[in-house]
């Protein structure tokens, strides 16, 4: 019998396989070590940076006159990150003074070039800083970034445009809000809430979209709900009048704040979608009158847990309905599910 030896093709293949993976592994180990060294160096550098730059920047923010040290090229990004950090936390005079500091240090042109050529992280920071600085010179670049492949960068560009000139930005940004479904909702909501102008324009857009029954309405309504506008929304009435979509109606019902909408809400009490009934139960709890008590009791007999739960909550929280009336309802109802639910919600309201 022969020996399986090194000359055998399978053994040779195995050898090369092993050799090449060990070589690549060595390269990887080298990379890991280099990365770690780089990280340690960067940490050291950033603590030196903080020591040198934080005190003058803090004094500047508080309005003291300061002479800044010379800005080395390798401190630039750290300074930008630090400035953005303060930008996001402060407003008013303090924020203006950060911008003054950035002007004195002549970072404007540098930021504009980073916005175009930096790494993604650097561009994100530059875009944010330029927005807070209300730098009109970067308007066109920011505008072109609205269509950038990176959702993070494009949404930040949008926000910076709004910070620079909310009115002009609204007409540019709103169509992109509609078309770019990749924009992370939390960022989008923050952006809209931050600017009163954009928020008004956005709500008007939603009102138009309702008129035209745009297919993307559900997403817009989710945004409206997340924004929680602190103002009457007349378009809700239109939405409740014309829409047949359970999701849209539910969203509309959740947004009702006006007693004048009561009839529209009542009209949906028998909706075939249980999800809509849940919202009717909640809305009646907010706006309902004594005339709605029988309606809520009827909803309390629903086969859906959430309808019963919301109806019970609404009944118990109605300001004009005392505990006695609730006890009376419990006594009068024949449906054990409705009774259990009222008892549960009562227990919930009693325990803190």
């Amino acid at each position: 019998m022969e020996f399986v030896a090194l000359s055998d093709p399978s053994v040779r293949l195995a050898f090369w396989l092993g050799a090449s993976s060990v070589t690549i592994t060595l390269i990887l180990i080298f990379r890991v070590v280099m990365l770690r060294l780089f990280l340690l160096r960067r940490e050291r550098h950033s603590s030196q940076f903080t020591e040198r730059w934080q005190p003058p920047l803090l004094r500047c923010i508080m309005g003291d006159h300061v002479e800044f040290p010379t800005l080395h090229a390798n401190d630039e990004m750290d300074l930008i990150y630090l400035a953005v950090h303060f930008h996001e936390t402060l407003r008013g005079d303090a924020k203006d003074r950060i911008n003054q500091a950035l002007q004195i240090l002549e970072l404007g042109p540098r930021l504009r070039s980073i916005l175009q050529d930096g790494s993604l992280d650097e561009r994100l920071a530059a875009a944010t800083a330029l927005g807070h600085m209300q730098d009109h010179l970067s308007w066109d670049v920011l505008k072109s970034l609205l269509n950038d492949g990176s959702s993070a960068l494009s949404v930040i560009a949008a926000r910076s445009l709004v910070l620079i000139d909310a009115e002009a930005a609204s007409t540019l940004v709103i169509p992109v809000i509609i078309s770019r479904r990749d924009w992370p909702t939390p960022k989008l909501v923050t952006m809209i809430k931050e600017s009163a102008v954009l928020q008004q324009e956005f709500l008007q857009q939603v009102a138009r979209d309702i008129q035209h029954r745009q297919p993307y309405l559900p997403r817009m309504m989710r945004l409206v709900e997340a924004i929680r506008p602190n103002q009457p929304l007349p378009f809700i009435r239109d939405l409740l009048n014309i829409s047949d979509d359970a999701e849209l109606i539910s969203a509309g019902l959740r947004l009702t704040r006006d007693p004048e909408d009561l009839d529209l809400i009542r009209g949906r009490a028998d909706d075939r979608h249980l999800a809509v009934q849940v919202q009717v139960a909640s809305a009646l709890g907010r706006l309902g009158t004594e005339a709605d008590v029988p309606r809520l009791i009827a909803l309390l007999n629903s086969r859906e847990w959430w309808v019963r739960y919301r109806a019970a909550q609404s009944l118990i929280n109605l300001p004009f309905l005392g505990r006695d009336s609730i006890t009376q309802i419990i006594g009068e109802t024949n449906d054990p599910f409705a009774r259990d639910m009222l008892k549960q919600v009562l227990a919930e309201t009693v325990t803190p």
Partner: protein
Amino acid sequence: MATASNTPHARILIIEDDPPIAALLEFMLNREGLQVIMAADGNQAQSLIATLPQPPDLVLLDLMLPFIDGFELLDQIHNNPAWRGIPAVVLSAKSQEQDIVRAFNLGAADYVVKPFQTNELIARIRHQLTRRRS
């Protein structure tokens, strides 16, 4: 009437986990002639509440903190006999109604939303200090 000059040695406990912001607050209040004690997370704050021989005159705290959050700390301050009654000013990025209500229910004296204005914050802190003295 008590004025700012009546509280030269007021001690403020700052509970803030974000280093640049903590540095800013420390600098800002030092500049106002106030004495500052820093805590960088909920645990540090908790042990200060338990061990400080004399409670500070005011607590300035963030809500989102590592390990123990600001709400829990407000509760601890409220339930500590030596600390009860010390004004706690919340400085937080949380701007929702429910959070603000919850903070006040837990005994917060004031609530400032981030992004904030430095002079406004100083004025609010001064106001709490003078109220306490008078």
